[in-house]
């Protein structure tokens, strides 16, 4: 790329440069890495990244094909859930788990801000971090704990949190988590613990 001269006139010059940029092997690897990092792990398996990069190259950057390659990859299913839900994902999951969609956006927007992901307002142009390492922060976890308690303490007629764990995590529910929920001192506390459990925080 660098050092090449694009002789096309006007707009075609830019398009030619972008097209070559898009076809560059480094671009395929970059997109593949971001894709795998978002869905699988902060440090995704190299074989998976390579397969995704090949898919991107071979299909001329077809994102649907890229997604299908990911879904068909064993690594996407076997990797341990090391990703942490972003605040956005956490709040949406919380609303779904508790069966309480917000009537207005206010609480969700406030929650996003307090958890460090204000809607569409990242601190820099590179957007919000997409690594678990960035979100597993002391202040972030404390904020999630407070928010989980605030949600749980407002719910009056809730189902058994241990049953909810089954619905949410199925076979992936850890017996340790189940026991902790059953030993909680109130249903509200058990629900807050469910919202904070690795099963609900990790993905």
């Amino acid at each position: 790329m660098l050092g090449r001269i694009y002789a096309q006139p006007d707009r075609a010059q830019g398009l030619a440069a972008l097209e070559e940029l898009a076809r560059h092997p480094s671009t395929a690897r970059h997109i593949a890495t971001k894709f795998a990092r978002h869905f699988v792990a902060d440090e995704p398996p190299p074989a998976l990244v390579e397969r995704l990069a090949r898919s991107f190259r071979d299909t001329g950057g077809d994102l649907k094909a890229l997604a299908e390659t990911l879904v068909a990859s064993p690594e996407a299913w076997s990797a341990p859930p090391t990703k942490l839900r972003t605040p956005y994902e956490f709040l949406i999951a919380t609303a779904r788990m508790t069966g309480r969609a917000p009537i207005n956006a206010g609480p969700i927007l406030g929650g996003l801000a307090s958890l460090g992901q204000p809607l569409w307002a990242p601190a820099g142009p590179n957007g919000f971090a997409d690594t678990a390492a960035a979100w597993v922060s002391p202040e972030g976890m404390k904020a999630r704990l407070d928010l989980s308690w605030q949600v749980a303490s407002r719910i009056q007629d809730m189902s058994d949190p241990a049953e909810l764990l089954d619905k949410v995590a199925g076979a992936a529910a850890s017996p340790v988590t189940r026991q902790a929920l059953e030993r909680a001192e109130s249903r509200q506390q058990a629900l807050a613990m469910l919202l904070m459990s690795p099963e609900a925080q990790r993905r």
Partner: protein
Amino acid sequence: MTNMRATFCESAPLSRRAMLTGAGALFAWAHAPRIASAAGARDPRLVVIILRGALDGLSAVGPVGDPDYIGLHGEIALSATGPDAARPLDSFFALNPGMPTLHRLFATKQATIFHAVATPYRERSHFDGQDVLESGLPGVGRTTSGWLNRALAALPAGQPIRSRGGLGVGVATPLALRGPAPVVGWAPQALQPAGEDLGRRMIDLYRHTDPALAEALARGLEIDRLASREMGDEKGSRGGMNSVAGMAQAARGAARLLAAPDGPRVAALAFDGWDTHANEGGPRGRLAQLLSGLDGAFGEFEKGLGDKWRDTVIVTITEFGRTARINGTTGTDHGTATVAFLAGGAVAGGRVIADWPGLKSHQLHENRDLRPTTDLRAMLKGVLGDHLGLGAATLAGSVFPESATVKPVTGLLT
């Protein structure tokens, strides 16, 4: 098991059991409704405080005169002597030193303590125990209304205590006060931070399942504690409604609302965090700190209610007690009978009311818990009957269904 023999433990411990049988005769159970007392000069205030997690009655009010007490409760037992001596109530019971206000109220006959009380629930699940405690039902079963609300709903229409509705303190009204009668909610802070106990439990869970989250959360809570210490109370009660400052804040606000001439007359609030499985502490430590928070709340109610204090009863109850023997982590596990407190200017206080069952192995419930000898509903019926003027039939009907055999304890109020 209904208690027909509640008695006043003001006598020497040796004669306690002996006098119990005869003492039953002291009680003329109220069969006649006493509507007049509520409709008359008194404009009653009633506060119900629910301690969620199960209060260890044996560490809150220690039977220091029972020879088996120290052996069972070990290093967290209260002692009548020594540097952390419990505050004497009578020759048999002593109060946790973390409760100076309650002790003063007791000494000035404005507080009564029930011991060896329990709801009819005999299993050991917090969730079910809390349901029974707050619903007023004779057994486990989910319901959408509580006994306090149904008591309000049973009052004649037009009575201020009913028409002004109930006050639910906290972000969610306790089940005891939910139901058909109108309730207004008030929370000291819109966004309550999680209490220490929840943080502790999550760190414990993460340590077994996700060490990275354990470390992050532990550090986050640590810096928050540090900030709280260095910056004081600038952000209000950082520990939420269950911290010492939070309990006082909730009580202060509720007292003002209850004292207002056009305000509600009945309030319910819940304090969490009493599930002391580990490092419970006795005269000092975690439980003593929680008790001091509750004690501070009593003080705030007394101060904030002003001249309405003389018409006030504060009822403090918990879902069940804890094991008589301490466990391997210097705490106690889920048990059965425990204590209940009545405080307020309308209380005919200065008494520990207990049909003491004893603490020998064969006297314990299932050889592990303090055996219940008083049905908590008998106490609650006594308060509701004399303070709100509800009749026995109503109390045994809509308020505490299927409880006709549980007679109200009378004479609890001035």
